[in-house]
């Protein structure tokens, strides 16, 4: 019960957290603000720093890229235009997800196709198994569970 209370309390706390928006005073300001730059940089990767998103990468090269993003945003580029600019300059590898074109479609299509195929196969077999004549009745052949149910019934 204590754990239950803890979970409930934490969930309610979380609900409270969700309701309190972040404030953005002057230290976090600027045009564009560091937060706006990071929101774009989050989905970019420099070719040198392995799998570290640009918004958290500490190298000088990545800091320079963030500066470049700030310049582009200041010039009025949209988020997508910034991504297009970097992809054109440095290749699609800088984008956090491959753009949906050419071979990249396989990234998005192959896993769902395999999972759906397996689910269909499983569904078909389950229906076939269920349709097969069987003497099975709702019950339990796990001895422990059967005894547990009996004892609980006896206590009622």
């Amino acid at each position, binding site marked *: 019960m204590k754990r*239950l209370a803890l979970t409930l309390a934490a969930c309610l706390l979380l609900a409270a957290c969700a309701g309190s928006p972040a404030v953005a005073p002057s230290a976090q300001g600027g045009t564009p603000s560091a937060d706006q730059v990071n929101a774009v940089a989050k989905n970019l990767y420099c070719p040198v720093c392995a799998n570290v998103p640009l918004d958290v990468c500490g190298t000088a090269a990545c800091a320079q890229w963030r500066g470049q993003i700030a310049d582009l945003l200041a010039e009025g580029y949209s988020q997508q235009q910034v991504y297009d600019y970097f992809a054109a300059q440095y290749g699609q590898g800088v*984008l*956090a997800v491959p753009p949906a074109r050419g071979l990249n479609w396989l990234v998005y299509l192959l896993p769902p196709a395999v999972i759906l195929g397996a689910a269909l196969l499983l569904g078909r077999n389950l229906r076939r198994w269920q349709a097969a004549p069987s003497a099975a009745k709702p019950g339990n052949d796990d001895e422990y569970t059967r*005894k547990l149910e009996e004892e609980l019934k006896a206590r009622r």
Partner: protein
Amino acid sequence: MIADLGFFALLIAFLLALYACAAAAFGSQRGQQRWVSSARSATILSFPLLTIACASLVYLLANLDFHVQYVTQVTSHSMPMYLRVTALWGGQAGSLLFWAWLMAAFTFAVMLREWRRDRDLEPWVIIVTASTLAFFLALILFFENPFLRYWQGITGTVWAAMWQPTGAQPYIPMDGNGLNPLLRHPGMIIHPPMLYIGFVAFVVPFAFAIAALVTGRSDDRWIRVTRRWTLIAWLFLSLGLILGSRWAYDVLGWGGYWGWDPVEIAAFMPWLTGTAFLHSVMIQEKRGMFKHWNMLLVILTYCLVIFGTFLTRSGVLSSVHAFAQSAIGPMFFGFIALTFAVSLALLNKRWATLKSEVEMTSLLSRESLFLVNNLLFMGILVICFWGVVFPIVSEASGGIGRAIPALAHIFTGQRATVGPIFYESATGPLWAALLLLMGIAPLSAWRASTARTLGRAMWKPFAVSLVVLAGLLVGGMRQPLAVLALWICAFVFLVTVYEFWRGARARTGHGEHFFQAFWRLVARNRRRYGGYIIHIGVILIAVGIIGIELFQQETQGSLAVGERMHLGSYSIEYESLAEFETPDGRLVDRAVVNVFKNGEPLTQLYPRRDFYYESQQAMTIPGLRSTLEDDVYILLVDWEPVSASSATFKMYVNPLVNWIWLGGFVFIFGTLVASWPEADLQPVRSRAGVRGTAERA
């Protein structure tokens, strides 16, 4: 001298592993047990030999013998003794030796078991374990020898070789390069061994599975023999993943714990198939079904273990966790391909004999739901695998584009990045479905279950979970995804607690106090209730993940001394920054930041940047204030040099993130309970109640 000792111990262990394979095969073919026993002795002997090799390398590392190339690569004078010792797994050659030593330790333990009932399996278990060991020892001896020493020729050229070349003199550098700064963390002392133990322990169930396939045994003996080995492997792999996440949270400075990095995924994939296997074997044990599937799962798990080691060791993928790169990639690739092909060929050969003893009879039976559970785990595996290999595929496809110009616009050869967004959005629904299934499956019956029986079993926890749902909505939570995910967590938690309560209540009928009944219930049904404890751990981890993934807040700002920055109910004030050097070769820039909550002083944090002179690498160490409610996580991004009059900070508020670590403890505890050896069974009583059956369960 010590390097020679280590090298010869390695060489003899390698020769013995080869001999063990040959002798076991010969003994099995001729039906001569003495050859098999000799192979077994050879396999046993590899453990003390590799212990000598490991101890030799540790001795060289601890004494900073820079004549040895590996010692120069991973240690330096500034490193404390504990880091010199743990540098054993800090580089390519040492970590492969450590892997082989752990493998030999597990093989040693397996060989010492009582084989009387499994004489037919014995030679094949020896062949599989010894050949895996021989493969790793070959890699070490011929590609990644940690005992190579530096020599200098007359012209001044320095190179590494095992023995002194003619005319060359020993070359001893003044100091070493030192360990990668990312590895100088307490988490890194424990994380790799845990992960490696998890990896190598999965070789044991694989060896028994192959032995069963070769000998044509279609019963579940191999599963019963390896159940505890599988649980131990799974325990350590889980522990390795949890510790790795904690290390990433503390050291990598990105405000998170899991970045869907290829190396993280490489360690995660065998865990996925291992988890599916742990669930699926229960069906074979109870119902004699899914024999093909279990074989396939254990083969996949083994191949993914080798694949994971291949990814981290070959340098084929760049990663924040890939601390070693070399030319051993093709060897690994060949070994995986060969193992997979031979295993599948064997499975195909025995396909007919592994037919299920009974058929599935109900869509809602426990076995059906376990099958769905397996499908979901495999779905996540497919997403992970494809995400990891697609960058390589996209780059390699350039060859097609160059060969067929008409297709050049499709096969561009440009390497793609598959980042966290892909994995999170693709696996998210599958995780939610798995979580929900975790609440339903334990209530369904084996063989046959109907919607009515299932509904009767779950209506009480379901009703209480609706109260939680109402609480979330009344509390102001409006994010549909979060509401749904937290409701599922609450429902599964309640189902699991209800199962404990029902079991303990049944036992109180025999005159036991409730808590005594609870204790004995768990103690005498360790596998069942250990599993339920693991489920509670998973729920806690899920709550933590929901908290940080859906409610994480972040901001960044430059602060002058005394200025404040705000995020949610928290604010931070920049007080000062100090720069100093440490005896272990770091230049540290450490800020002092005051943290406030709702305007009231809360604590002081010290985010810092450590610059390692030896490796010319910087580390960003967060200032962290942790509670069960949330973490305030502050990074020092930049600062005004000399005057330190202003500094830039990145601030995160990570709600509920500590529930992940708390859940991790519960998870590991549950696995220990489930894998703890049962006490000697009591004689079966004729009129046994839950107590009696429990004692026999």
